[in-house]
């Protein structure tokens, strides 16, 4: 039996149900509205596990579910060596979210990461501490800035209202998820021209460490045919 983990509520759950329904597989919550159990119709041997979207990467990494639908960003942020522990079967075309680096719009001398790096050096010399970037995506942002050779910055943790941290002087720049950029503009921030850390969307992942017996492999093959993957 394949265990398929999908988000248990919200828009991500609806869009996931729509995506599967369009391919002849229906995901249905069973029992009461608040119960986190469900069934899969249209294909045999698949069990539905409803989880919060943030728990799905961990369950996939541990192999407690065989398949899971969640955002590319949370998988890359939460799971070290994610590509060694799961396979991305398909990007699903919804749940789009760009993780970007943004600075005050009034920084007229800053357009690119190159500028940010130069400003970080001058800022550290002038203020005695490294330029602070507020984010909750520490791994993604650190890996990105290391690959780009940006130095003299520090990440400060921000689990919400990240756009406000610059105005409140707890950070000089931010790295956050945006879909239209409107919130950033409203907070007098602008995105760096090459500051796209990750263009994320919802994706279907398979867990390498789940129990894949002969039955599960056959069921996966059937499911992939049905889904056109």
């Amino acid at each position, binding site marked *: 039996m394949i265990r398929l983990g999908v988000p248990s509520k919200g828009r991500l759950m609806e869009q996931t149900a729509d995506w599967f329904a369009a391919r002849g597989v229906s995901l249905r919550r069973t029992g009461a509205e608040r119960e986190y159990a469900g069934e899969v119709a249209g294909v045999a041997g698949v069990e539905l596990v409803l989880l919060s979207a943030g728990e799905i990467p961990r369950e996939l990494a541990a192999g407690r579910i065989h398949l899971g639908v969640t955002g590319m960003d949370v998988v890359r942020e939460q799971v*070290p*060596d994610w590509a*060694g522990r799961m396979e991305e079967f398909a990007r699903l075309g919804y749940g789009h979210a760009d993780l970007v680096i943004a600075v*005050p*719009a*009034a*920084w*007229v*001398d800053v*357009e*690119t990461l*190159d*500028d940010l*790096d*130069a*400003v970080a*050096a*001058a*800022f550290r010399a*002038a*203020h005695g501490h*490294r330029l602070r970037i507020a984010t909750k995506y*520490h*791994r993604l942002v*650190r*890996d990105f*800035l*290391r*690959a*780009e*050779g*940006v*130095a*003299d*910055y*520090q*990440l400060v943790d921000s689990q919400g209202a990240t756009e406000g941290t*610059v*105005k409140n*002087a707890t*950070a*000089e720049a931010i790295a956050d998820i945006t879909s239209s950029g409107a919130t950033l503009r409203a*907070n*007098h921030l602008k995105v760096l*021209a090459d500051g796209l850390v990750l263009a994320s969307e919802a994706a279907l992942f398979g867990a390498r460490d789940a129990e894949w017996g002969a039955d599960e492999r056959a069921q996966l093959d059937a499911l992939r045919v049905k889904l056109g993957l």
Partner: protein
Amino acid sequence: MADKPAIRAEGQRLLDAFRAAGAVPVEADILQPAEALLDLYGEDIRARAYVTADPLRGEMMLRPDFTVPVVQMHMAGGAEPARYAYLGEVFRRQERPGARASEYLQAGFELFDRADPPAADAEVFACIHAALAPLGLRAVTGDIGILADAVRGLSTTERRKAALMRHIWRPGRFRRLLDRFGGRAAPDPRRAALIERLAADTPEALIAAAGPLIGKRAANEIAARCTALLEDAAEPAIPAPEVETVEAILALRAKAPAALEALRGHAAAMPALAPAVARLAARHAALAARGVDVAALDFEAAYGRTTMEYYDGFVFGLLAGDDMPPVATGGRYDALTAVLGQGRAIPAVGGVIRPGLVAALGGLR
């Protein structure tokens, strides 16, 4: 894999060898304040070290190396010259399964000496080289100071030299800066558009037009960088022969005597390299005086550029093979002592050995 008592026994033999060479054994706390390490290495160290929270002392790290605490201890009142030795675990966070050990013993020797840097380099290398002689390792040497002197010798602004110096340990960005300052990269259209906008009005007017200024970076800092960008845009490119000399140094790999000859050739074209070449010649003489076969040493001018971030002069590694981390590494870190000493500095050179790898290679007995 050798067992822990065997590894510790190898470490103890190395510590004894360092003591016989005049070093005083020292200890360091396993829990180190994160602040000093973060200031030195930047945010990257969080990916490489274990960070933990102490309820009273704030953010702490499990000792990623001994160099920082030993330098701090020495700066707090050590006599000079000083030789220190240590043996203990270091901790390195690993993001990929199976790749590298996340906890291992390290035996080290550090020498603080103002009198004769080439002799100090040779003493540390010879001590570690001799201790590991039974293993027949390949010795690679290098000198980050040669690249630094080449950058200082470029015919360009202090600002450009400072930008290159700052990224000397980040090959990718160093390359991009060198290409830009050397006029070899096609001009970035975004940068060109930015310069055009900045030239159109005063920084104050541009800032006012861009919206309310938020955050800690002040208008005068933005204006100063606008001026700097406009000045830099008017600067001529670094002459091509100088860029080629820097590239030739980055690519230089040869036996030590041949490398010295090649660098003498570069110094003829770029006189700023003369002191670095003289240092290298003096180091080779000092190594020979300590009985090291200099002709057998490999020399790579860019050795240790990506992995040994705080070394700024002589660097070395003793290698068993490509599928194993270096058994020993070391080098000179004068600049680190200046940073940790808050103005005070002392020339320092040191090296570390991994007893676990020594044991895996059959040990010293």
